[in-house]
Each structure stands twice: as C-alpha cells, then as structure tokens.
C-alpha cells in the first residue's frame, strides 16, 4: 500500500509531502522527507540517461528492502513520487498499472491545485482540500 506521496517542484524543492499514518511525530516526518529527498537521486539519474521521449513520463522505480519508490516527471518538470511499502499486509504486490493510475490522478489533483488563486506556483501547497484528496487517493486506490 502507498505510504507516502510527494510533489517536488522544478527546482527539486518539496511542494507537498503527505503520508498516512496517525503518527505525525517529527521522526516519522523526518524519515519521510529523507525517503522522498533521496528518491530524487534515482529520478534525476533516469532523467539524465533517458534524454528523449516518453521514458520519464512513465514510471521510474527504485526499490529498497522495505519500500518501493515510483516517480513520475511531468512535462513541466514537476516530479511526483509515490512510496509504497513492499511488505503489504495482504502480501499482494501492487501492480504497476495501479501505480500509474494513482500517479495520473495525483497529477490531475496537482493541476487543479495550482489553479487555486491563493496558491503561488512554486510555493508549498498548503491547501487542505488538496491534502484531503491526496490522502483519500492513498487510502482508496493503492
């Protein structure tokens, strides 16, 4: 299941990092931030090596023992990161197609979020609505 979702800006700054779990303590947030931040390494590597066409619009993944990282780079260089725990309680692996759908929906949510007149593109996304939608996306879909 997905444990964390992040939107990273053109300049690699975090625009939104959201995760589920009741624990909002600093340690949890810290490890989540580390996780997403280091995921950028893999994304950048993919972007650098597949210079042309489609390759990055799809998914790039990195696996650790406990987590699967999926990344998606939009045409506007916004990076969407989805972290799933590979040890899901049901034991079933998340299918790539599901991840793709989730990332696509996340992109749609982001496209809506930047149309918020109170949001300045490039700033962190503080909209509560966006946060809720993303969390429900995490819970319901993946």
């Amino acid at each position, binding site marked *: 299941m997905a444990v964390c979702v992040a939107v990273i800006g053109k300049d690699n700054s*975090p625009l939104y990092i959201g995760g589920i779990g009741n624990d909002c303590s600093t340690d949890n947030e*810290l490890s989540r931030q580390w996780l997403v*931040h*280091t995921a950028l*390494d893999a994304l950048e590597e993919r972007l650098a090596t597949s210079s042309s066409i489609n390759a990055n619009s799809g998914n790039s993944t990195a696996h650790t*023992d406990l987590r699967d990282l999926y990344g998606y780079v939009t045409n506007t260089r916004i990076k969407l990161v989805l972290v799933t725990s590979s040890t899901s309680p049901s034991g079933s692996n998340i299918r790539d197609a599901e991840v793709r759908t989730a990332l696509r929906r996340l992109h749609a949510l982001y496209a809506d979020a930047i149309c918020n007149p109170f949001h*300045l*593109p*490039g700033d962190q996304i503080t909209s509560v609505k966006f946060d809720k939608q993303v969390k429900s996306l995490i819970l319901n879909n993946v």
Partner: protein
Amino acid sequence: MRCDVQRRRGGRAAAAAAAPQAAAAGGGAAPIRAAAGRLTEQQGPPGLQLPHSELEQLWLEVQLPGATMALGTAYRPESKLYLRLIYGKEAQKHIRMATQPSDNTEFPPEITLKPLALIGLSGLDTVNNAIHKAIWDAFSNNRRPDRASVRFKLLNNTFEFPVVKPKRNSYEWYIPKGILKKNWIPKHVSLIPAVIVIFYDMEWNDPQWNEKIIECASRVQSIRAAVEGHATRVAVVVVQSGLSPPPSEYLLGAERAQALSSACEIQSKTLFVLPHNDHLMGYIIKLENAFYDIAQNYYHHETKNIKQHRDHLNKTTHQYLFVRHQFKLGFLNEMKQDLSTAHKHYLHSYNNLLETRQVDTNIHELRTVAGYINYKLCKLLFALNLARDAIAQLKLHIERYKSRIGPTELLFEHYAWMARQYSAFGELFDDAIRAGLPAIQSQHPGFYYQYAAQFTMKRRQAMRSVCCEATQYPPAPDPMEGIVEFYGQRPWRPGRLSADPHDPQKEQAAILALQYNERIFNHSAMIISFLGSAISQFKTFHSPRMRKQLVVEMANEYYYCADYGKALTLLTHMLWDYRREKWWFLASYVLNRALQCAYLSAKIQDYIHLSVEALSKHIQVPNNDRNRIYKNIMSVLQLNIPDPEPDLPVASQTKALDLWQSSIDKEPLTICIDMTNISSFLEVKPKFVQQKYRMDEFIDVEIYARLIHCSLEVKKILLTVSSNTETMEIPITDNGNSTVTLHHGVVYKFLCQFKPNAQDNGSDINLINISFILDLNKQRKIVMNFKIEESKPRGTCVHPELLHLIMSPKSDYNFDCIVPVTTASVMSRECRLSMLIENQAPALQGEWFPTTFTITNDENCSVYDMSITVSLLSSLDNPNPDSVTDMSLVHGKPQSQPLLIKVGDLNNSSKYSNIFYLKTNKIALIAVQIRVSYYINLHDSPKLECVRDFTTKITVIKPFEVEASFSDMNFKPITKCFLDDPFIVMPQIKILSPWSLLIVDTDLETISCCKHCDEEQQSCVSNIEVTEKDVASDAVCIVAKYKPKDPLTRIGLYNIKWRRKCNLDGPCVMSTSALPGLTIDDCPISLHVSYPEVIELQTSVPLKCILTGNTNIPVRLSVTIEGSDAYMCSGYKNTSVTVPPHGTVELCYNIHPLVTGRTTPPRLKATLLGDNSKQGTIKEIFEKNFPQNIFVIPKYNK
C-alpha cells in the same frame, strides 16, 4: 610445531608475546585481552583535526583500520599478527586494503583470503647460496594474478608436518563437538603442502656422481618419512649450471636421470632439471605450472578421501559432519581452483547447516558458520561473474537468519552479526567492481554498507536495552578465558552440545562479560566507518542526496560520541545543499543539530551564523521559540554566555559552559555573516531609481528592507558602491539617524543619495553590498552582509509575474514585486546648446558642398574650452564614409577627418558659426555628426564637462546623366563605323539637379584609335544654363584611325565642366562620364559619293563617286549601275575598275530625274574581283554611301 616464517620474524613477535603460543596451540584464535589493551593505548582515541575543506579525508581517516579500534573484545590486533605469521608480506598488504571496522564478528583471514595450493620447497639454502636465493626469489616474488594460483613455502630441515590423526574406522559412536575446526584451514593453507619439491645441485657429469645420487635419494627418503601419513607428493629438481653438456653426454644425461628417479623412487615425470642461466624465470614459470598440476592432483585425491566418509554418516547424529565435510570439499576445490565445484559443495554445506537444529547454545556457532559459508558462496559467485546470484544469495541468507535472534540478553550479537553480513558483502561487491563488474545507481555496495550501519545502530539500541546493568566485568575466573576449537563456540563451554547450559552460574558470568564488553564498545566509530564506506559508494553511483543523508547520519554519530567539532563541520556543509534545494524541514533538522554542536563546542562564529539563520521563516526551531534564539544572539553581542539549546546531552553541558567562559570575550569580535547565502530573517532589496544618471544629478538608491521576526536595532547601515575608479561605503540614515530600529511586518524604504565622481563619466556604477551592523557598544559586532552578485543565478522558480495576481498582504506584495536594480550608468551632463544647420541640400555628386552651422550658447553662463568635432557616421549602405567622402573647412582642399575646431570660450547667448565642406562621389545619404564639448563652472561642480552630439543628414544626388548615340555624317544612326570613315558622337546631358546649373564647357577625350575630325574643337553646349529635366545635346565628329585588337567598350570620356548657377564665381566642377563603345570595321576601299540633296526635275546633275584604295594591293571591282524608273542615267552601265593602292579612281555619271518627289536615284553596286572575302563589306559601304533617295522638285516655268 614451528615454522620458519615465525622464527624469521621472531624479533617482531616480541610485541605480542602470547602469539606464538596461540599459533602453537593449533592456530587457534582465542581473544587476547592483554594485547588488545596495549594496542588501544598505542593508537589513542581518534581525535585528529578535521581538514575543513576536504570532507573526503574525514572518511578516509575513519576508515583506517586501527584508528577506530576501541575497547571491547579485539579480534583485530591478534588476527593481524596471526596473518603475518601464516601469510607473510602478502597478508600485510591485505590488511591495508581492508575497510572493515573490527569487532568480534569479523571474519578470520583464513576465510577471507583466497586459498592457494601450497607447495613446499626444500633444499634451498637462501642464506648462503646466491643461486638458491635467486631461485627462491623467482618463485616467491612478483606473484601477479596471471601466475599459477600457488603459494610457495620454504621448508628447512627442521620443518615438521602436522601429525596425522589416526584414521577412524567407524563413525558409529562418534559425536562431533562442533561444526568447523578453526585449525583445519590454516593447516591446509600453510602447513600441509600439496607438493614438496626437493632441490639438489648436481651435474650429470659430476665426478662424484655415485655419492651424490645416494645423498639425493636419502634426502627424498627423509622428506618421505616426515610427511608420513599425508598424501603429499614429492618432486625433485636437479639444479644444474646450465652450460649445455657436450653432445657425447646427451645420452649420459638421460641415463643418469633414469637412475636418479629410480634411486629416489619417484616417477620420471616428477623429476625436473633447472639450469640456472639467463632464462631462469622462464624455467621457473614452467616448473611452477608443473607443480601446480601435481598439486591439483593432490587436492583431488584429498577430496576423494573426504567423500569416502560420507557413507558412514547418518543424519541424526552427524548433521554437523555433513556441513563440515561439504565445507572441506568446497575449500579443497577452491584450492584446486575449481570454483564451480567449490560453490556446489559450499552450497550443500550451507543447506545442511540450515537443517541443523537450532538451540540457544548453538545459535552463535550456527550463524557464525553460516556467515562464513555465505561469504564463501558470495565470493565465488562474484568470481564466477554471477553478481545477481550473489545478491540473491545474500538476500536469501538474510531472510533466513534475520529472525534467528538467539537469546534476548545477547540480542546485540544478532545485530552485530547482521551488520557484518552486510558489510562483508559490501566489501566483496566493491572488490568485484574494482575487478571490472559494472554496477548501477540502484544496486551497488553502498547500500550494504548502509545496512551495516543501520544494523550497528540497532545493535547499539539493543545494547542500551539489555546491557544497562552490566556495569562491571565479572570477577575472575574470566569466562572469556579459554581455548575454542571450533568457529563460533563459546570459550566458557567449548564443545558442549546440549541445549541446557550446564553451569548456570558460569553462563551468567559469561553473558555479563559479553554485555560489559558490548557496553564499552564504540558503536559510533563503527557506524561512522560503515557510513564512510557507504558515502563514497553513493557518491560514485550518482546519488548525491543519499550521500548527504548519510553524511548527516554520520554527523549525528559524531554528536553522540561528543565530537562536536567534526559534527558541526559536516552539518554546516550539508545545510548548504538542503537550503539550496529548499528542503526546509531537513534544513531545519540539520541546522538545529548544528546549532547544538556549535553551542557545545562554543564556536562563536558558527553559533551566531546558525542562530541568525534559525530566525528565518523557513527554519523550524524547537518549540517555535525564536525569542530564545534572538535573546541568545543579543547575549553574545553583550559578551554574555547564551542559554543552552534544548535537549543537550547533560554530560557535555558543563564542559560547554567552561568553553564559553573562556571564549566569550575573545576573538572573533567581529562576526560577518553572508546573508545572501543563508535563509535570512531580514530581506533587503536595493534599487537605483533611474537606469541612467547625468553628471550633475544626484544618484539615488532606494533600499527596501523587511524583517520577518521580532524587531532589530541596527547600529549602522552601509551601502557599498563601486565604479571604475573607486569603491565607497555610504552610510544610510533614517531621517538623519544612523541607528535604525526595524520592526517585523513592515517594509522599510531608505533613500540614499550621492554625487557621482567626475571620473566616472560614461561608465557604470554597481551596488556591491549592503551591511547591517549590530553593535551594542561592547567590543563585539555582528555584520550582516547582503552581497549583490551579478552572476548569481536566479534560483527562484517563482515568476514575479505570478505574484501580481496572488492575494497576499499588500505590504508583502510591495516588497516581493520589487526587482532589484543594481547597475546604473553615469553620463555627461545634458548640454544646453542649440545648433542651426544651413545648407542647400541635396548635395550634388562631385561638388564641394558647403554647410553652415551655428551654435548658440543657451547656458546661463559662459562656457569655455569649447571644441567641435565634425565626423562622418557610418551606416549600413555606407560602411566606410571617410574613404569615399572628403571633408574640409576650406573649399576644395580635403583635410584629415574628423575635422577639429577649437572654439575657445563662448559667452552666454552668443553664437559661433562656421562652414564645413564635403565632397563625395557616392550617391548616398551622408550622416554628419557634430560633437560639441565644453566645460562649464557650476556652483556645485566646477569644470564640469558637457558633451552634445548633433547629427545632420545630407542627401547626395547626381547632377545629370549622360547618354550618347552615334550617327553617320548624314545623321543616320549607326551601330558600326569604318576606318577613315568619319562619324558623329552625340552626348546628351540630362539634368537631374533641382538646382539650375551652368555648363561651362564640355569636351570629348577619345581613346587612341580615334581622333577628332575638326582641328579646333568647340563644344556645342558651352556656357549654357540648364535646369532640371533639360537635356543638352552635343555633337562631335570623330574618325577611327585604326582597328583596335579588342572590341571597343567605350569610345572615350566625356568631360563636363559645370557649376551651380547661383554660385557663378565659384570654381567649376569637372564631371566625367564614359561614352559607350562602337564596332570599328575596315574596308579595302573607301567610297565618297557626291550628289546634290535636292535637284530640279528634268535637270541633269552629276553623280560622282571617288574610290580610294586603302590597302597595299590594287583592288579590282566590277561596278554595275542599277537603273531606276525615276531617272535617266548616263555612264558605264557595267564596268570594271582597278583601284590602285592608296590611289583613287573617279567614276562619273549623269543622272536626270523624270519624276518629282522622293525618288530613289540609280545606285552603283560593286562586286569584288579576285579575293572576295570582303565582298560583304564592299556591298555594305556602297549601300551606305549611296543616297537612298533624293528629293526632286518640279521645275518652275517662269
């Protein structure tokens, strides 16, 4: 049992007196606490000064083995010694390569080193015999990987071989006491050679041959006796001088070799001859390979022996033996260099081990052995180039053992073991990459080092939860004392297999001892070491962010072990990157930790830096308590000790206070902070109000400032401005007060005005820096510098355009949308002069065209040193105007350009006037620049230079166009002429000038092949006045003298002297045009026909025709007159004439017109007789010269 290597190093061995005994006791690896203690003392704690710029060195430093040696059970020093004993020099090299921090989970060297077939060399006296020394060196030195995988060992006479154990006939009652014996591998890699080679000096033709052969045989015998029971092969090498024997003795050699092998009871194929000549190395390589073959044969034989045991074993009691035998098979195959078979056996061994029953008493042994076998498996898979399989093997291995944690009171051992599995694998992986294995970003050794670090952290955590009470080492007897025969067994209960501890008290003491050792173990050093390895890997494999995270973790470890200086250095470097990428949460985390370090190490500079940044809105501080941080900054300014940061380790606080006490009023007294490189709580934007300033204006700079937090009293604000000539600091005041108090939430605007420097005229001035100086009248100051760099990339991704539409507070908006302007240019004062330009444009091509300019001084006072420069400006269609246009201040005399006029002083309201002339042949628009510069004395800036450019544009046009036509003497247009046949050139001058012109004179300058017909030439159009659109026609009669070689392109130049009508007394302008060309032809004769233009009806008139010969030969013609109805005609109708050379013939006819009006008279036609190549020309000239028609008027009858 002793070996010579040991003795040779006897001097060294004194450093660890216990070692020989340990080796003597079967190569066991019992921990020796005494040796460990000494080593720790010698090395001292790691406390080296950190090189600030080179972080890499830090990691290198911590990777050095020994440097991190700490307390606790120490395997390393002992194993290092042990390595030296059994492996010699090679092992030392290996130790240096090792990157693993040590503890008791470290793999013994016999596991990690590559097994090589052991070959004993006997009979070489390397001390006294130079030849023997050379042979030994050739074998033992320079063992590159391409040489056979063998190791040579020099055996002397006293060498003793391990005693052969009595052969077991039945395993029925045998219960193994452990899995793998510690002495088995060392025995095989260093004590039992696969082959013993006996070297013996002997020539085939030795006079004492019989004695020698006996001696040699006896040596072989004694070796045989020594290895009794082992299957060690024996070979003999006869060392000979290498001088080739005389041919007569070839046979002798073969015979004697035969005799020798039978005397020694060896096969002839194990007898070798080694001539020691120049080619020694080649022979040695050959010998080496031969020995290697024999060795392989030996190891094969050994494996067979072990396999025989298998039938006797049963699964219930001999599970350990299944593991052990398969391991041995694996190892022997490895010595044989049969890697895949070795892997197969190790895998059997590993699987057999998995089937072993696990209890608390054997868990340590099981996982130790499992770790070793797994290590071997992975190493072989890498060697077989099966990296994926190696990774899979490790994963499976971890998966199988990660839950086998053993007794909870020794939980830390499990994690230590896990960490070691990962780090050892990482090292194997790293070695494989060095050997050429490609790795990628998502799969490289760094991950395994990272896991190793993580498990070491878990190990520490486990230690903290289970070792709290182990404050003291148990009293004697030391449970750790004792010799262990098997890998992974406990010294206090060796060889015990039962699941229950047989002596609970001893067991308790042993656990306490382990816990105590764990408690004093330096986990941080180990974690730092693993992290260091991981960091360099992540750096290699393009993972800068992962690397950063690990560096921060490393810094945390330094923090935990109270090395705040190092931690601070690492953290401040990392802070930079997180700040740059705007990961404020992570930046905050790093900054807060760094601030703790700065406090604890009382580094004032860093402390203030970090505190100032902590006030930024992006940084989250503990409890959101910015006031505390602000107060701390103020404390430092007042030379007071700041309050401690929250959550500091209690133990370090007192020391920190001492440090503060001693440094609070010392350097650095002035702390400069580069605010543009940090996230600042004070934002500043400077702006030139205008882009350009005149010299007489004040330059005004607006400075906007916004404070995010609290309020701030600024002692001084300085603006640094630089220009070409100087850099100056300008204090900024708030209504005259240099001390400014800023409050948060307000956008402040300061205006700063200054006069430009006279020398900076025409150059740029730049804003360099703005400094806000905090100073509470103590010695200490904080200078916050806002440097302005042109080249600084705009990191921001927020487009200012978007800000306009964001509904943010107006004051913020006002600040945010200000675009800093940091460069302005200084220009001359605007000049108050007016210029009047008068001329009669357009100018005509070729004339000296006068332009009058008048300057009026409109300044309020007189100006002086005025000078005027008149120059031509280039344009696209006239790129080099000075090359085609002459200029002058005098009519008719070109002067060098630009024209310079020194005017001198000019009084208020007075005028200065002058004329310049220009002359050009180019039809273009000419731009003329008149630059006036002068000095003026103004009250606040004396001798101020003013410059003003005036530009005027002058169109140049052609005054007229000349076209020309040609006609014959009858004014009939012609397209060609004949030699000596005059014709008329008619130039037509079409006037284009809007101004009336006077054509003074014209003349035609013919080319050399033509000449004028008239002696005196008088132009038809001289002295006439013309105006626009008039056409003046001239006519000049010329004749061709000879025929030029090339066709004529022009007949000559037509010169027109003219002047403007309004300018009658001025000099004339001479314009020249080229006239077009005409074809010139020659004819053998010329013809002149004379006839009247008009005749009366019925009146006879003569028609005379004169033929002149033009050639040097007579021309014969047949002439026929062609009659006409309108005339009667008399004369020869048909005659033939001969025209003599350069002579003339006259033909006369009388014609009598019969009708009136335009009539065609009779015409002569001529045919050339003889050479008729010129017939066409003759025809043409006759047709041309005879009249086409004659007008006949009626006769008046009075």
